[in-house]
């Protein structure tokens, strides 16, 4: 009567299933597809990109290959004012976008989940301390914080990740905490205690699997945040010029007056990539919300 595969999935399968990917929502599927595409692009960037994204291309006569329009001299999306291949930058930009996005999301989801779990499960002074910390984190304006951090440390994409890890766990932490509070009042958690299960075991077996989708949801929001933040930081000139990101490309384009040059091929593609990846995260998020809080959806 029951599918055998469903009954005894392997650990990976179980993990995957407990993420509860929202595969019934068409937008969420679209979002997942966008992620998958960009993920593959990032992994195979070396093979896809025809040039090193930071390589300054010029002819043997020291003629700079700059401001070429798409298609000219074989450059798919043309070149920047500094003679770099835009297409290759887009491709490599995917890599840094995803590295930033995913590590930031991972940090935010991980820290937030741990805080939420510990705070919600144990309550008492642990909870009080952690939630006051969250209050403080809520009092720190995020973008200014990243700017200050970026200015103090050397420009690096990791500043954004660090700042997010330091500040943005607060939202995830609070939501997961309240979820844990609900879960904690569930009968089966009490039942597990009455059965003699240890706190750790209860957290890992009974509570954590239930908040995994929620962590994932906040993770996918965080991916978007991270990418947008990195872009803003780059735009303001606190970015890391060594690693090509879409935000860096936009900053480069605006600083080089791509608008005045009407170089759409330069400032539109990175913008679209950002919008795609970030909204893909939102779409997945929305699919999750429909799944987790079905009363919200239709």
């Amino acid at each position, binding site marked *: 009567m029951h599918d055998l595969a469903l009954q005894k999935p392997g650990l990976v399968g179980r993990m995957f299933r407990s993420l509860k990917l929202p595969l019934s929502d068409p937008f969420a599927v679209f979002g997942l597809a966008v992620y998958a595409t960009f993920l593959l692009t990032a992994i195979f960037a070396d093979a896809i990109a025809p040039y090193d994204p930071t390589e300054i291309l010029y002819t043997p006569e020291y003629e700079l290959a700059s401001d070429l329009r798409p298609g000219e001299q074989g450059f798919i999306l043309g070149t920047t004012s500094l003679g770099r291949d835009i297409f290759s930058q887009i491709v490599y930009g995917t890599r840094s976008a995803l590295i930033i996005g995913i590590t930031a999301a991972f940090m935010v989801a991980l820290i937030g989940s741990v805080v939420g779990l510990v705070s919600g499960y144990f309550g008492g002074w642990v909870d009080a301390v952690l939630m006051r910390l969250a209050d403080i984190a809520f009092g720190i304006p995020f973008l200014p914080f990243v700017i200050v951090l970026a200015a103090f440390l050397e420009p690096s994409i990791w500043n954004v990740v660090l700042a997010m890890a330091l500040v943005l766990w607060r939202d995830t932490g609070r939501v997961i905490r309240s979820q844990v509070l609900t879960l904690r009042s569930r009968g089966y958690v009490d039942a597990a205690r009455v059965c003699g299960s240890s706190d750790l075991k209860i957290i890992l077996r009974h509570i954590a699997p239930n908040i995994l989708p929620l962590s994932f949801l906040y993770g996918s929001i965080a991916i978007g945040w991270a990418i947008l933040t990195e872009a803003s930081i*780059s735009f303001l*000139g606190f970015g890391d010029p060594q690693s090509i990101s879409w935000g860096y490309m936009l900053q480069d384009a605006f600083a080089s007056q791509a608008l005045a040059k009407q170089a759409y091929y330069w400032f539109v593609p990175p913008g679209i990539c950002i919008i795609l990846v970030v909204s893909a995260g939102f779409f997945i998020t929305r699919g999750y919300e429909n799944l987790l809080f079905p009363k919200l959806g239709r």
Partner: protein
Amino acid sequence: MKSTCRAVMATAFLALAAAASPAMAGDPIRTIEILSRPQASQPQEFQSIQLIAQEWRKLGLTVNVRVMPWEQMSDVVWYQRADWDSTAWQMVGRPERSDPDEIIYNLFHSSTAEKGYNFIGYQNPEYDAVAEAQRGEIDPEKRKAMVFEAQELLARDQPNMMLVHPKQTFAFDKTVWKPESIVDQSGIGIRNTWTFMALEPLGEKKDIVLNSSDNVKAINPLYISGGVDSWVFELVYDRLIRVGPDGLPKAWAAESYEWKGDKTVAVKLREGMKWHDGKPVTPEDVKFSFEAIVSGEAPMYAPFGSNIESIAIDGQVITFTLKKPAASFVTSSLAKVNLIPKHVWEPIIEDLKTKEANAESYQEKTPIGSGPYKFERWLTNEEIVLSANKEHFNAPKADRWILRIVPNVEAALGMLRSGELNFLGEFSGDPKVLIDAAKQDGDLEVVSTVEMGFRYVAFNERRPPFNDVAFRRALSAAVDRRLIVNAAYRGFAVPSNSVISPSLEFWYDPKTLAELKTGHDVAAGMLEEAGYTLDGGKLHYPGDTKETLAK
């Protein structure tokens, strides 16, 4: 395209590999660092450094470009003088730098190596002698020969790798301003005090509206607070002398001036001048202005008055007696120090003497000067409004001078085209874009001129291998300056091999550039000749030199 680039690089490596003799070799040279500011703030510098690093790598060096903001970079370069290898650097043009002394002496004299401007630690007694001698020489022709000698010594030693003298590009709306009324000040460009006084309106619009990307910090005659600020206070305050459009000193608030011996200058104050509050400008005010800067309350201006032994007044004539002979005194002090009203500033300075803060942090609500424009209004981070001082001896033809703060280059250009601005006072973008825009628009005129300032890569002479002249010469020779001009400056610069700009025609020694030979082969040849070897694609020290600074 790509394959051609790679081919060029490949042949270069082959050539080097063949030339290398691995028999006698020192340690491989450590990773060389080169500092640069971020692309966002300094795109040309950043691009130049990328190109230079690319060329140096072809010589077998491992080069690491470290990007840091200006504040951090200046901190490292100035205060950790033993800790960096090489850095991008720049000197900007200022009217008072029309006299070569500041550059020739301060940047390279061994006395400034420990704490002063000679942060690269260049030590050459021969050069020191020349630099000192030109200071005391009042005869221009004799002094010119000395300045030439100094330039040639620098070209030989290559303490720095000179790159370019950039061109400054400005634009204005020629339907608003009469193009002939624009004044081009050599080495400075058309955005200068002379232009703002001379601009002649063609129609109803009589306000000069120009932009700056940087905020105005202070309008304070006793505080050197920054480039944009000087645009403002040069208009509000007069000076005895102003550097003329030709780069040479020109009597201004002084009716005339005269050297009496090599330590005495007599200045006759123009009659009938008035402060903006209506009080007359007196020789007492002038004397006070020069005393105020050495009162201890204006540390930044103090060096410009420290050579003054005494000031004597005789009617309208003010006589300055110097401690040491200084040929540059007229340009660098008389044309630098702002004339301030004694009745305003004396009580302020007296008050400040009792406090920790000094005059640099004092901001008048309404700055009072005697200059061609009067202060009207200052809106924080938005705009500064000055109005023409119609009673001035050189009254401006425009009505008002309005400086708008526009941080975004695109917006500045857009505003110029839409008429929100009628004078582009600053343009950090791509000059070609500006020229294209002018062509399309038809109302705009763009003017580009070579700057007095220059861009260069400073070598830290304290650290091997930069202590080796041959190594420095090779590194400098490795980069064709045309590459920098074209690739980084889009043609809006001229190649340089001297600290004196060709815009200062009188002082500039053209031989320095003419004799500079560049190219990869030239550089590789120099290194080989000096005993550097290439092993496994990595450059090694000559002989048995050890690497002492590797991390």
